């Protein structure tokens, strides 16, 4: 039996840099990326002072804007002078622009009123913070509102001031009616400086603002009255909406010879009567309204007008 010579073994040197050392490098890269990714999503931290912080909890309560979470409360602290709480909120990076001067913060809690139900989900979730971004210079400290601010108003239309003896049902959100159609809403109401009347700021939407003239009469349209007399029963005529949620109605007289009075300027003050006089209801002046639908017709746009 002849033996073939044993094959010479291949001797390879240990590589100077074993391939396995790539593993910690990859780990470093992946770990670093994860941490960087997490840090990048973090926006600035802001503080908001509230008079009352019931239900706000660190790590749980979220800050919302337009229904989307834009940050989370990281801490709730009592103010040093004990008259309120300071809430720290970590914003998301994409929402960092919210933290600018003029931003409004408020706490959303379930609100059940005659004008509707709002924030019902917070019954289950607990309160959340809401923000309306500001447009000033960047800031990181804010004073929170103690109630929901009036809704953002459309740019068009005009605001007027009403003077009333009693607030009645003219709280924020109550309607302003013309011929029982809602053409505006109550913005805010407050006591006059000398406490002799209630001042109510209303806003009438764009095409309908022209209905308000210098001689327009306003009256309280909330509630209903029911009179029973010898000749039968009489129910005061209001719309169901204003009956439930309150509001103010107005009518404009047709002037002498059909001429209308001048347009009421922005901020004009009117008195509110507690009840409409019979003739006010009958007023039916012709007032031209330019409705937005007409303006936005394709033919009008094609003409390049406006």
């Amino acid at each position, binding site marked *: 039996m002849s033996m073939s010579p044993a094959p010479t073994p291949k001797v390879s040197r240990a590589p100077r840099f074993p391939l396995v050392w790539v593993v*910690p490098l990859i780990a470093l890269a992946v770990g670093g990326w994860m941490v960087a990714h997490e840090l990048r999503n973090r926006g600035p931290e802001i503080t908001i002072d509230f008079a009352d912080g019931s239900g706000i909890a660190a790590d749980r309560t979220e800050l919302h804007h337009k229904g989307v979470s834009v940050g989370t409360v990281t801490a709730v602290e009592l103010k040093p002078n004990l008259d309120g709480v300071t809430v720290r909120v970590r914003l998301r990076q994409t929402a960092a622009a919210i933290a600018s001067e003029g931003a409004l913060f408020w706490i959303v809690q379930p609100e059940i009123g005659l004008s509707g139900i709002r924030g019902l989900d917070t019954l289950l979730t607990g309160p959340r913070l809401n923000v309306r971004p500001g447009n000033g210079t960047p800031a990181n400290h804010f004073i929170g509102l103690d109630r929901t601010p009036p809704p953002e108003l459309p740019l068009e239309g005009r605001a007027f001031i009403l003077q009333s003896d009693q607030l009645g049902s003219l709280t924020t959100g109550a309607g302003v009616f013309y011929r029982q159609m809602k053409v505006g809403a109550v913005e805010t109401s407050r006591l006059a400086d000398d406490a002799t009347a209630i001042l109510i700021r209303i806003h009438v939407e764009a095409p309908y603002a022209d209905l308000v003239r210098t001689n327009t009469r306003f009256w309280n349209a909330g509630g209903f009255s029911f009179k029973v007399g010898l000749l039968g029963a009489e129910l005061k005529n209001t719309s169901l909406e204003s009956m439930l949620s309150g509001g103010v109605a107005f009518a404009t007289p047709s002037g002498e010879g059909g001429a209308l009075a001048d347009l009421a300027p922005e901020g004009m003050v009117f008195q509110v009567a507690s009840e409409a006089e019979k003739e006010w209801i009958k007023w039916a002046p012709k007032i031209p309204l330019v409705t937005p639908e007409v303006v936005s017709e394709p033919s009008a746009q094609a003409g390049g007008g406006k």
Partner: protein
Amino acid sequence: MKRRHPYLRSEKLANATAFAIAAAVMLVPANFLPVLTTQTSGRSRTDTIFSGTVELWNQGLWAIAAIVFIASIVIPLLKLVGLGWLLIQARRGAMRNARQLTRLYGALDVIGRWSMLDVFLVAFLSGVVRFGVFSTVEPRSGIIAFAIAVVLTVLATHAFDPRVLWRSGSKSEPALPTL
């Protein structure tokens, strides 16, 4: 060419070291990044391993908190420290306490299998707790880092050959190639 120690064995030491270092690196994001987000009836809460343990403790679930704490924080750390100690000793070569070190290796091998508890917990919760608006659990990036770290420690333990602990400690022997 006279080699008392096969090349393979020393490379295994390098493997184990590399995996151990990688595991140590991954433990940083695993412990600092959130591992899960729980949403219960709209309230959302994001937890790291540690904050989750604290929350369990605060809720009075001491036993579970202790288990999670041991399985997710103590064991991975102990494993890495023990492994590091073994690797340093093996590199030095002089083994007077080879028996104890081998016991330590055995212990590390046994406890290693318990450290995936967290990953299973998160995977289980994310899969089961899906009640829409009422309750959901979502895994976050930290748990991935944690799982990678655990896998790497397991790889490191298995790449470590306890026989290197039993070499005679004579200085005349070729030292293990330095890396």
